[in-house]
């Protein structure tokens, strides 16, 4: 129940890991943006983008299984787009009736649903590669370079440090609750209390987690003040981006723009 369980960062010595975090963040967002801008049903371009992200995954040495397993976590949301198959008018694929309603599945609806699913799946892979190949402090550097306010970046940094502590705290609270809660298989025995009682217990846990965090933040503040903190957020200047890294950025963006341009010209 520690850093390994939460932190998706997987240290490797690959080209992707060595890439400047700022460039990685920009390229990941550009990849996702390209995905979002591609028209529905532009299959060749989905395949090319898939080849692109697959190549990056191979180079990154993260392991295909790892990325694919994590990317499946985003699938449940596709349920939201599923009704499109039946609501977009078009060439009828099949139809069935539920009670008084006649429901048609259309080719256009299916095309749109599959397009959305593929785009979303490709985008999530880019985000996974970014998170798995960049440590959080490096991401903070990238955020600063992209003009995220310094105050927000420092809050992110502090949150990241204490997230593990507080997740441990929350899991201790949960463990304590299970330890207190007896369960009986006897048919007559009533266990678990009423719904509102269970909710109140959980609420108490939330309240105490909050209170402990509040008091902890006080102690942290005192510790920071005693080490000379004066409320000003200071940071080292950002390191220079290496020339070779600029080349990667330009090449990556160029490739994505070319894909997009071609897709909009041929398909749009």
């Amino acid at each position, binding site marked *: 129940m520690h850093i390994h369980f939460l932190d998706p960062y997987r240290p490797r010595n690959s080209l992707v890991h060595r890439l400047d975090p700022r460039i990685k963040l920009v390229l990941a967002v550009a990849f996702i943006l390209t*995905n979002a801008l591609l028209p529905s049903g532009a299959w060749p371009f989905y395949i090319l983008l898939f080849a692109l992200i697959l190549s990056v995954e191979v180079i990154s040495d993260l392991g295909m299984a790892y990325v694919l397993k994590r990317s499946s976590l985003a699938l449940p949301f596709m349920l939201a787009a599923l009704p499109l198959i039946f609501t977009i008018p078009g060439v009828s694929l099949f139809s069935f009736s539920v009670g008084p309603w006649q429901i048609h599945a259309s080719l256009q609806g299916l095309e749109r649903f599959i397009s959305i699913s593929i785009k979303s799946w490709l985008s999530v892979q880019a985000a996974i590669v970014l998170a798995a190949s960049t440590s959080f402090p490096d991401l903070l550097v990238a955020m600063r370079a992209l003009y995220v306010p310094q105050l927000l970046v420092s809050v992110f940094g*502090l949150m990241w440090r204490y997230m593990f502590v507080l997740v441990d705290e929350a899991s201790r609270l949960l463990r304590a609750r299970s330890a207190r809660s007896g369960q009986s298989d006897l048919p007559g025995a009533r266990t678990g209390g009423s719904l509102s009682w269970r909710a109140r217990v959980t609420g108490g846990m939330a*309240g105490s987690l909050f209170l402990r965090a509040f008091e902890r933040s006080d102690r942290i503040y005192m510790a920071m003040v005693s080490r000379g903190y004066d409320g000003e957020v200071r940071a080292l200047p950002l390191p220079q981006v290496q020339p070779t890294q600029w080349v990667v950025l330009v090449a990556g963006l160029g490739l994505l723009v070319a894909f997009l341009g071609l897709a909009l010209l041929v398909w749009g």
Partner: protein
Amino acid sequence: MLRTPIAMHIPDGFLSVPVSIFFWIISILVIGYALKRVSADLGERRVPLMGVLAAAIFAGQMLNFAVAGGTSGHLIGAALATILLGPWAAMVILTCVISVQALIFQDGGLLVLGTNIFNMAIVAVTVSYMVYHSVRWLAGSKSWGVYASGFIAAWTSVVVAALGTAMELAVSGTSPANIAIPAMGGIHALIGIGEGLITVGALAFLRASRRDLLRSDEAGPPRGRLVWVAGLALALLLAVASPLASRHPDGLMQVAAQYGFLTSARDPFFRLVPHYLFPGIENKTLATILAAVLGTLIVFGVVLGVAFARRRKSSSDGGQNNMTPG
């Protein structure tokens, strides 16, 4: 375990680009202002306080209780944070939570992060602020006022944020309004009850142990008038607009198409003529096959390259290789 089972973190690919950019701009403006306010209110303590409490909200979303049939109630925390810390700090804290969830755990997309921040940090916080203080004010000095207003604020914040999410999906053309809005609203009306009950439990605990944390907001009508009005406006807008939109989904689609949100949905409508479709499909099939071949070649080349590089490295490292893999 860490994934909140709440269908409110929109992944990438589900919102059209104009919608994403529109909500990015709104979120940047609002959060920028919130940061300024927080700096003025909290002073030196802002970084440790907000950092640790953002971590607490993140961890608090793990807390759950069994409801029935394997489902469970969860804490989301927007209302609790708003009640305890005021709207501006709550917005910043939730922004941090949502951003970390997106960046690190892929719970919600990056391009749509602005929209997710808008729904879960801005809408949820302003609405719960407005509801909490209004009910509190109506209840006067009654002791149940805290609990009633806490419950209603938590429930409303969840439902209104969900309606917002459904509307954005509908405007993007990724989920039909007449299905998404009632479905999201209905599911979150139930989820909201769990959130409300946990919030009440937390308030009861804090009232018993640290009443001073709740006292700052105890008396009088709401002070932050701007947030109150914004919360009211958002709640009314979403509560009134979403039933309308779900009853007339075509209207929403028309508006969306007019403003160019549905760029990708436009073309299918006039590709129905068979003789027009046929050559198109032939070319497209060819292009798809070409892309597949090209893609396979690229990936194959990369795999070969990586394998070759690794082999050369391991042979040049020789016998005294003491590098640990991975």
